[in-house]
């Protein structure tokens, strides 16, 4: 063995020895930290409860539940879990990854949720249920507003060529379905042209890190809806109030794409004020106004509107009218209902995902004069609960 070879060998040995020591240290250090790290019950970032140490029963051991739960437990309770998630996000950013958990990362700091046409029948079923329901009330004026999502209006901001399905195509076929139903008392409000115009002018219609529309977006939507409803919307003044300027929303949580990107949440308060009271029917609480400071300061500040989604709200207002509105809605509507308050004496807000009462009894007994279906396209397309409550429960028998 020459000198040089011997030196090389010694260096190699040194490298492996050092690596051995470091490897052991890493494994044992992390294992130790994992052992002593305090357990957490809830992750505000992911908005779910974290797995706890699994129950060890013979049944669990036998069928593999225990071992699966163990892996979940270890990952959920890993020391500084959120930082690791962030580190992986950094890696993904370097690698040029643009997609995670159904969310695309765009260049202009927008996170945009994908739209996938997985099952057209589900939405068709919902639409049919809505039409059948409305047909029973020919004297009530009905409005149908499906709000386009960011993946339609802001499709230029998506990473080029991202393989999402076109909301526009689906919406066109849906419009046709509604037209074929031929209901004289139903008006459909299409927002896409207006939104496209607004977006072109640089107005912010969607939150950058949340799947909802901004209050401004809701304002534009309300204006269109009000025009169809025949409301004196233009005469109403609104006072803008900024309530949050570091809003990081659900899309950031969902994708794990963390950055300093933040949004502003505004409230538009009627000026002069219109007194209103919200009865949370199933919660058996009646509260003043439409807003929740608890929601605003909580994990999801969008919950400033009503404090979240509830099965059935009944808003009474001091508006000088006897029109009463029934809204079937998803969370998009939360930001918009405030714009309708000055024009209706009562608004019943039903969230079909949670509502379990008899919708026909409600419709007939509450003296409803107007019905509005207000959804964003993605939820409407994916959610089956609306047809469930409209069909009165025997949908699947």
């Amino acid at each position, binding site marked *: 063995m020459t000198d040089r070879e011997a030196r090389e060998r010694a260096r190699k040995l040194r490298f492996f020895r050092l690596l051995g020591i470091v490897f052991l240290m890493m494994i044992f250090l992390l294992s130790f930290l994992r052992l002593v790290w305090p357990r957490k019950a809830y992750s505000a970032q992911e908005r779910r409860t974290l797995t706890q140490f699994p129950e060890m029963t013979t049944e669990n051991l036998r069928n593999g*539940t225990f071992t699966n739960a163990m892996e979940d437990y270890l990952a959920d309770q890993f020391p500084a879990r959120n930082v690791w998630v962030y580190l992986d996000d950094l890696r993904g950013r370097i690698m040029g990854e643009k997609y995670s958990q159904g969310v695309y990362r765009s260049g202009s700091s927008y996170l945009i949720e994908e739209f996938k046409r997985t099952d057209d029948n589900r939405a068709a079923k919902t639409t049919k249920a809505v039409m059948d329901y409305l047909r029973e009330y020919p004297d009530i004026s009905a409005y149908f507003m499906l709000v386009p999502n960011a993946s339609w209006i802001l499709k230029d901001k998506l990473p080029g060529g991202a393989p999402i399905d076109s909301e526009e195509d689906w919406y066109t076929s849906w419009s046709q379905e509604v037209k074929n139903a031929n209901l004289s008392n139903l008006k459909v409000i299409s927002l896409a042209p207006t939104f496209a115009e607004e977006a072109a002018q640089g107005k912010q219609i969607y939150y950058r890190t949340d799947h909802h529309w901004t209050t401004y977006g809701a304002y534009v939507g309300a204006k269109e809806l009000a025009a169809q409803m025949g409301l004196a919307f233009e005469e109403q003044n609104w006072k803008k109030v900024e309530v949050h300027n570091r809003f990081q929303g659900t899309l950031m949580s969902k994708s794990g794409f963390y950055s300093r990107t933040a949004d502003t949440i505004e409230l538009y308060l009627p000026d002069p004020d219109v007194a209103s009271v919200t009865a949370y029917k199933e919660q058996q609480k009646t509260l003043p106004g439409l807003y929740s400071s608890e929601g605003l300061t909580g994990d999801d500040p969008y919950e400033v509107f009503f404090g979240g989604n509830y099965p059935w709200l009944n808003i009474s207002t001091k508006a000088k009218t006897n029109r009463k509105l029934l809204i079937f809605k998803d969370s998009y509507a939360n930001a918009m209902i405030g714009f309708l308050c000055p024009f209706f004496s009562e608004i019943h807000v039903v969230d079909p995902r949670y509502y*379990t009462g008899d919708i026909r009894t409600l419709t007939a007994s509450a003296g409803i004069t107007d019905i509005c279906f207000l959804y964003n396209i993605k939820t409407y397309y994916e959610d*089956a*609960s609306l047809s*469930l*409550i409209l069909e*009165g*429960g*025997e*949908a*699947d*028998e």
Partner: protein
Amino acid sequence: MGEQWDIEKRRQLYIWAFQAVALTALFAFVWFIAHEKKYKEVDVPQLVADMSTITQDEWHAEDNLSLKRRFGLAANDFAAVGYFGPNSNMDAAELLLVRVKDKSHTDAVVEAMKNRVAYQCTCFDGYGEDQMALLKDARYLTRGYYVFLIISSDASSVEREFLKQIEP
């Protein structure tokens, strides 16, 4: 010479026995594994309706909205659902059979069932002893894709009948 032959023969006998045991053990094991895993697909609502007649409990078939109201479960998340609920607020007997689409849903269903029973317990606690007895004896069965909640005055019979029905 003869003795050695005998030993040889005995050894061969042992080997023969071992071969037989090895094969039998393998088949027995396969039978054990395969036997355990298989459940029949049945008409769930019909099965529940049949089982509801086993006991004299006061219950009746419920719709999907009651399922959503009481358990927070949406029927269309599952392959099939059969639900019998109490006739009046003084009855506690219930049967809920769910066939899940995916076994990972099982836990969530059992969780919802447990919540329902816990809620019912708060209703009857210190009040309806008979009802509490039923609720204490509530059974949660998970077999294959089936999840079954039994709250009944004769839970054992219902359980036995259910297992008989899904076992091939």
